[in-house]
């Protein structure tokens, strides 16, 4: 397009479809698939029980509800179907006020995994911790001596006070405090 046209601003308003699958089921579009399955199962169970209880006297409402639940299940009852449905109807999730994805980090299991990361930092990667940074998983038998020798030229001086490959003098080599005492 030669000259840049402006962003379209139509007169028709964006609106949420009140008959969308989530609204019909009565669940948030942000709910997990397990929550959707559970609600579908509960509602279907209740409708079936009502249908059985009424027997011949059933009005057809229960059957209509069961059919509707089947339709909803077809649309959002499985991860694949739900993903396809959400791709086609993004407005359901977009028009729902929601927390940021990272706020899920404050679930107990996530905090527990944070604890392990903290302990790796505090106790060092040599400690036996169930963490993918722990050395016992990476080099279960220790570093091969031949490889260690080849890596020696690439070991930097340790500013953290590690003394193994530091080239600067260690503190104990200082004469110490004794000569200064009265």
């Amino acid at each position, binding site marked *: 397009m030669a000259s840049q046209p402006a962003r379209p601003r*139509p007169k028709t308003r964006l609106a949420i479809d009140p008959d969308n699958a989530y609204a019909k089921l009565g669940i948030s579009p942000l709910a997990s698939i397990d929550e959707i399955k559970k609600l579908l199962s509960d509602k279907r169970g209740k409708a079936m029980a009502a249908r059985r209880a009424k027997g011949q006297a059933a009005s057809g409402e229960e059957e209509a509800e069961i059919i509707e639940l089947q339709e909803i299940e077809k649309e959002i009852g499985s991860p694949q179907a739900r993903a396809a449905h959400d791709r086609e109807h993004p407005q359901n999730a977009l028009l729902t006020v929601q927390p940021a994805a990272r706020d899920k980090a404050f679930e107990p299991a996530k905090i527990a995994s944070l604890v392990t990361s*903290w302990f790796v930092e505090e106790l060092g990667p040599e400690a036996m911790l169930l963490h993918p940074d722990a050395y016992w998983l990476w080099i279960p038998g220790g570093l091969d001596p031949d490889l260690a020798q080849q890596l020696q030229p690439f070991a930097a001086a340790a500013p953290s*006070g590690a003394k193994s490959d530091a080239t600067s003098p260690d503190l104990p080599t200082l004469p110490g405090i004794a000569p200064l005492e009265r």
Partner: protein
Amino acid sequence: MELSRINWSAAAVELADEHHRTKTPRARRALAAVSSLRGRFSDDFTVAAASAVRAVELEPLDPMHRVRDALVRLRFGDADGAVARLDALGEGVADLPLVLVIKALAIARRGEPRVARNIADRALQVDARHAGAKFLHTEANLFAQAKGGLDKLAELPKGAPYDAAWADLLSKLAITRPGDARGVAAQLERGVMTKGSKADSLARTVIAWTGASADELAAAVAAQPKDSRAEQVALGLLQLKLDDDATNAVKILRGLWARVPDRPSVRRALVAALTRLAVDEAGAERFASALRIVQACLELEPHEPVHHQNRAALFTLLGEHEASLDAWAELDRHHYRLALLGRLDPASTRRYGAPHRMFAQAARLSGRTGVFLVEETKKGAITEKELVVNQEAIDKDPEQLRQWLHHSRAALIWGFAGLGTQRDRVLLAPPSPPVAEARAEALCALAQSLAVLVPDEGQRLAERLSARFRAAAQNAPMRYAAPEVDADALAVHRHAIELYAELALLCIRWEPDPAKRALFDEVMETVRAVSTLFDERVLEGLVADRREGPPTSLGFLESIMRVVLEVSSREVRLDPQQRKRLAGVLTGNLRVNLVERRAAESQSELSRHEVEALVEQLDLARKDDPQSAKCEYWAAHLLMVGDFLDEAVEAIAAFHKVTKGDHPMASRIERIQELIDEKRKAGRAKQRQGGIGGAPVTSRDDKDIAMREAELEAQPTSMHLYTELCHELALADRWRDAHAWAGRALARCLTPAGQTRARELALELAGLEILGRVDTGAMATFVAGARASAVPAFEKIGTHDSDAALEYVRGLALLAADRRKDAQQAFQRAFERCTRGIYLAVLRPLAQDVETAVLESAKKEIGDALAEGRLRDAFERIAERMTSVSRPEPYVLELARTQLAALLPTIGTGDAPLSPPPIRVDAPWKAELAAALGAKDTAIRIRLLAELAAKVHEPSAREAAALIRKLDDLDEQLAMASSLEQSTKRAAAGDIAGALELLGDLGPAGDKSARVLRQRAILLLKLERFAEADGEVAKLAVLAEPLAREFAGRYPGLLFRQRIASASALVRAKDFAKARELLAACVPAAPDQEVELAYCRGYCAAADGYRAHQEGDRLSAKRLLLEALGHVEGKLGEARTMRHERLLELYGKLEADIGIVEGTHG
């Protein structure tokens, strides 16, 4: 050795270099080990993952590298990827306890503790004493159940090595099972950990936090170091505690934030609580209140996309239309900025595309105001639903159509952007280079919608994405069977086809408003772009899948395709020309619709100027669709209205030619004919300026030609450009233009070689045009480079009276298929039948002797084989040619060239280069050839072959001489490699000066070799000749080799370390003055080096001070100790952050000792 202090990237470069040079198993193993371990120490996923993969490639039989590859995935949160890699391990390896433990860990992180427990159980069955498996099994077991089971803890091993595991397990239990707090505390008291150990103290802290009140936790958060893991854990527990009451959470977190306003994690927690409150408010339909809270979140975190999205959603829910449009535009802008910063992973692109999909869907079908409508027709008891164009809504609000158009395009572009940069994904496995290029250009055109939707950022993003699309199209191969695309790419392709189907409906049914030409142009451009992505097989799949469900326009597109292309078979397979024709019909029809609407609205009250403009539009439509009866009808109508009677008659004739019989418009055409006759009688005939088809046309093809023309203006003798352009025109079925350009090449390229090539091109084009009339596909594949594939088509064409040009092209195709005799016959026929003198110069040598052409073809094959490293193929091809041609002389040079190519990679490796197979030629120089081939030394063999080539084949002499010069250079390099090897050995034996001496006299070649310069610099550093080392590095820094760049980058660090080491030795020898001098010259290259230098300077001054004190010189001692304190004091903050314990310890010691010295002195 502290592994975290290793410079893994430098180690990888160095060991890769060593592996490349020596090719020894030890070097390969070391490189593989370093590559896979690098995955543990790199914070960049791309680097870590690529290194792990490289390790697996180097040592495919060592399962540890595959295990580390899985660990890399797990480190970066890809538990699924880790499990997939572990599952792919072979039998015997997959059941090793370590592998099972890592798999259980990955599955536990995926949130499936029961499965993790079972896998850990399998690990214990293999090795019942595996401590890691035991802890993991217990942890997973306890996490899988809500309560009880703590008695299992008694089975776990105890002792100092397991303190960390115990601390971790008990802390996690305290968090995830608050009901078991007493049981967990009891374990602590049982002494499962070493009392007073760091692990014990950490576990007690976490367990205490789990039982603390919200205020206590807030105080604990404030007490932790900023941005530390401890802070995160305390804050997480606080949020957990406040989970039930969003209002209270906001209150407490606001208070905490007021106390520690510099903490980003506290601000994030506060924003999370505010957002939860906004969610609650919106759930209760208090949208205004929710909006106020979201605004507060936005002020605190303007960078977080979800707040922009929530704000836009709330404006929408409040019904504030204009504000909501602005808010959604802001969200897009925010997304685009993130994309410009490089966040273009699939999940992000899906997020960026979602609002566009929403807007496109909203404009597409929106009750009575959408671009399309679902029309219901009752046919008896059945109600049929059909998707139709909502002409009225588009006329009323054209912005609705623009919204659908641009947001659909943007959503599509985000879909493609999410597919990455791999050609077969992003360009949907293009079958040929022209298709790849066309698809890339189409995506570039579609990306312009980003600039329409978000000016500035959108424009920059469109440019960046366009560069990606074009890069993907470069060097696309020609394929006969394109690979299947993956599910994600197929989903994007389906999206494109759905859009094309709706555009097709629009093209056929929509009548564009002539007053809104910009809108019409936007639709046209979209149709043209999306048409290049059309694939009938994808359409077929979509039609089958969408048969049930809401009505679509897919069936409509399928019908149009079948009618236009007259195909009736069930499975439709189209060629590029047919797809182009389909697109032409759609764009042509839309243009005719535009003209029709204007003509209908004017009720024939059109000015002459308007008539001419409309007829020009029809000329363009005719260019897209030359078979359109509707176009010819309206041309006849308008030309008649404008009194251009002769042209109107021509249009009527074209109408009859297209319709070939009955047509619904036939009666209307007859009426026009009558009116023309009447006008003729009245003498009202006029002449249009351009005539039919003569109007200036500015199609995309014309633009391409103009571009090429500009290129040719700059390089008017580039035969390569002429050939490319003529081939493009041939593929576009524009033979007249192609011949014209070939004619220009003849007139401009006047060197002997240029003339020959221009004549060849002209002759080839003439032949291709005839071939194209018989078999378009064969012509296209020939043009694309696969000449041999045109042979079957030629076999169907008789030879007895064929054209000379066709026989020439046949000869080329047969030659490519290596049917030399048949090719020669074809060339002879071409020569005999050729009537144009200029082509005889091309045909004569071929007709007389096809071997020249055979040699050229063989040279190309050998060149390709050498470029791809297929040395054996190259040798075999030469041997086969030398024994089968009548003049094998030119191949001797090829033999020498190939032998040189085989020698080069083996230099310095000790491997023997590949030798040519035995070659027996029937020539007077066969003994010389045998002698050359029999030479034991490869370099001598090459030299002898080159000399022989120069002797037996005069045209080879120049290249042979160049080859011999290259050999001379090579000798020099070999000498240098030997010196370097000896120097390395001597340095390893401790003779540094001797090692340096060996590299002293390597001449100018030595000063240009990165390896030599690096070795010299390292040796000079070891000899503490720092200035000379700097000089060697200065020479190395200007070299372009990766090795040079890597070493130059690493050198400041090495220099620093070496200086510190030398200064340390001087301090130990109590030579403080020299040590100070050396330390004064030290230049730190990183913050950690600054701290280290401060420590060393402090240490030097302190040691000098203690010496003075020992000697009784208290005044000097005090001065020196104070100087030492000054050095370390300035870096205390950094030392604390970096945990430089020695500096901190020195500081403490100096503080105490200075006090004593001062006391003594005083």
